[in-house]
């Protein structure tokens, strides 16, 4: 299915968020996620199935002021 990942259109085969993260190369990484502008805790990723067109944001620690 086609979803949006960090503003880019991406085709994924997996359905659940935890599997999508693995498929996109985030396995084991320290990232936080939001789907359609709503925060998804790490513990909820395995249960959450994404739908075509969903907007996924994946963020990590960065420099800040």
């Amino acid at each position: 299915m086609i979803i949006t990942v960090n503003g880019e259109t991406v085709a994924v085969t997996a359905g659940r968020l935890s599997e999508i993260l693995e498929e996109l190369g985030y396995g084991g990484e320290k990232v936080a996620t939001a789907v359609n502008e709503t925060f998804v805790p790490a513990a909820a990723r395995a249960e959450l199935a994404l739908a075509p067109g969903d907007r996924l944001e994946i963020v990590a620690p960065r420099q800040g002021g």
Partner: protein
Amino acid sequence: MPRFYGTEIASSLMLGTAQYPSPAVLAEAFRRSGAGIATVSVRREAGGERAGADFWALIRQLGVRVLPNTAGCHSVREAVTTAQMARELFETDWIKLEVIGHADTLQPDPFGLVEAARILTAEGFQVFPYTTEDVVLAERLLEAGCEVLMPWGAPIGTGLGLTNIYGLRTLRAQFPDVPMVVDAGLGLPSQAAQAMEMGFDAVLLNTAVAKAGDPAAMAEGFALAVEAGRLAYAADPMEPRDMAAPSTPVVGKAFLE
């Protein structure tokens, strides 16, 4: 020393982690600053990039508490979601809440700030709101559950110092028991000393150190200035007066005419 949400911090200097020429310079600047709190952010990460892991490893080496921000957020929802993601990543309830309302000045949106502060406080966050010197807004933020206020000195990144001395002095006087941090707009150590002399509990800066020709030396300069200002405030400064008053005793002066 400042106390935020029950945690005492060993330094009144808080330092940002952005815009340094290299990770090594950042680490050296922190070492010489003695800062006890580092501000950080969350940003998009590409798959396999692992930039977040590298940055997180660097920050852990500094031995400071982290204060994640919601920098760049313009809506309540965006700020709340960013705060939630930051809490999971950095494993802290502390959040520097920014809800920006104006593109050129990066002035906080007071209405969105209060709403976001209320939501986040209800979710157990300990909110450090980036605000203005407005006393009415301060009152609303305290009602929303904030136990710290972070008024700006000047717009972010300008280095103009304390542009509204009267407003900041009024804010400090109105809420004498609330920990307050002058956040943003400082460019020179003298400006940080001035904020501390006025009774603020701490200052937070980033650009002034990171963009100096020698960030580590500037970090130490700020550390010394902050300590000087803190001591001066605690020492109860003299009142200024308009007319001269001789400091050397008049009594006993020899008559030599």
